């Protein structure tokens, strides 16, 4: 009962967004009147939304690639050397995205990257860097949990005693074992990157605004248009989450067999 009530609380706003995005007009009534696909066509035909959509995808994909390349060696190194520094770094990574509010971090970017030495404010690369920094901890935590759970250290010792060099161990044992967690971590990373608004809104240039940044403008327009633009973002996020759930399930199945 309680869980159902809670699920209603979760799904009511989404349901209203969905209904609203197909509604012709919606002013001062419970639900909209009329059915139309007009709003979605409007989004499709709007050049600024199209551009933002593409920027968002570019940023998300680049973020995924860079985060993987950074997080896998990092997680491996920190779990292998259980020294004090490694422990501290892990804890720091766990709390850093929350301890530093996004607006503050963005302000830091404005201060540092608008200097003559580093005039990167407004570039897409800086947006990607911001997304990398804010998603790295999530990927890191997913990987560390999996490395501990799979007892990779033991497997690596075994491979070492069987004659495998570091490279062989990494590509034969570690990477295949981590592929599920890398993938499910990536889906969270891409979902966060696609939805990120608070930092990007302050550091993006006019031409490389991401989808959420442009989305905010539509809130001041027609309800139907706002609903359909929001639905587009929501569908992107849902696709990511569903992907994550599916990989997690197939991973747990693989473990059972």
């Amino acid at each position, binding site marked *: 009962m309680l869980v159902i009530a809670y699920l209603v609380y979760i799904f009511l706003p989404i349901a209203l967004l969905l209904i609203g995005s197909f509604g012709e007009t919606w002013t001062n009534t419970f639900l909209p009147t009329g059915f139309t696909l007009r709003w979605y066509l409007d989004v499709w035909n709007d050049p600024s939304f199209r551009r933002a959509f593409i920027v968002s995808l570019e940023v998300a994909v680049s973020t995924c690639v860079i985060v993987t390349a950074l997080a896998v060696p990092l997680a491996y190194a920190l779990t292998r050397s259980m020294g004090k520094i490694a422990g501290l770094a892990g804890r720091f990574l766990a709390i850093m995205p929350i301890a530093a509010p996004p607006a503050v971090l963005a302000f830091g970017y404005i201060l540092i990257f608008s200097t003559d030495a580093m005039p990167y404010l407004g570039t897409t690369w800086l947006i990607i860097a911001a997304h990398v920094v804010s998603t790295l901890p999530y990927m890191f935590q997913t990987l560390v949990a999996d490395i501990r759970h799979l007892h990779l250290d*033991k497997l690596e010792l*075994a491979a*070492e*005693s*069987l004659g*495998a060099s570091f490279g062989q161990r990494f590509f034969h044992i570690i990477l295949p074992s981590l592929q599920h967690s890398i993938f499910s971590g990536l889906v969270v990373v891409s979902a966060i990157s696609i939805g990120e608004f608070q930092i990007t809104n302050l550091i993006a240039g006019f031409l490389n605004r991401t989808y959420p940044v442009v989305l905010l403008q539509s809130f001041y327009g027609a309800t139907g248009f706002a609903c359909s633009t929001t639905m587009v973002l929501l569908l992107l996020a849902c696709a990511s989450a569903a992907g994550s759930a599916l990989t997690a399930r197939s991973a747990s199945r693989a473990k059972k067999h």
Partner: protein
Amino acid sequence: MSIVIENCSFVYPSSGIGVHDVNISADDGELVAVIGSSGSGKTTMLKLVAGFEQANSGRILINGRDVCGVPARLRNVGMVFQSYALFPLMTCAENVAYPLKIRKVPPAERRRKALDMLERVGLAAFADRLPSSMSGGQQQRVALARALGFNPDVLLLDEPLSALDASLRVELRREIRRLQKEQGITALHVTHDQEEALSMADKVALMHQGRLIQIATPQELYDRPVNRRVAAFVGHANLWDGVVVDADTVRVPFGELRCSCSPYVSGDKVTVLVRPERVMPDADGTVNVFDGAISADSFLGAVRRYTFSVGGSGIEGETARRKPFTRVGIPPEAVQLLPFEEA
């Protein structure tokens, strides 16, 4: 093939514990068990031989070759881990073939060798199964096949049976011993289970607090322990504080025992050892005979273990006799004197 550990010392930088000046050797085809309580350094010894840690001083020779400084992957040792450490994403056959793959054996040949090894541990039918779908005993058999399949110089066993059920353990002991003998491979077997060590090994090394206390055949270790700790760790034992009275009498808390006291002399404090199965219920004669009563009694099937009280002291005994008795005897040749040590 042989393993020689010479004056080896190693200290973990983080905790300061380790092993000190250890000498253990295993001759060609021998299985040497290293036993001791947790923290005794037995697993550390194995890590040093495997190359996971490098000794601070001393030498380790595998087949006459000094392996100090040689990384683990180049030492050519087969190792079986307590947690099996089978690669979860590879099938059994792939696991067994993995070291061959590393050694660049062609695919068809390594598959054939892997199947052959699995056959020898009785798991040929499981070749294409994933390890996680098999029981612990089966997984450990696969691990054994993997450790032996690439003709390593020596076999290292790190508590291979302690994650298994008791009944399986006995079965696998025989299996390990059989394969080890078949291959004629020299093996070092670390375990905390003294019964396992005694039943499998050619020689047993007992370690305590990072030091080797005694290395001997199982029989010798049981019959001629060098000190109180070995006597207590291996099998059951009566251990009493005693004082030598004369050349063939020692005083224990419940009276005097006749025995051969050499090399100790009158007045020496000693620890007196008598194994429970040597205590004779309803003994005849007058030498080392004590009257008293049974104060604790547990029936274990083949034997009955009891505590016999004599004037406030207890004598532990084992017997097949079911009837009650009020007198026990200790044959003089069953009494051993060890250097005095506080309990």
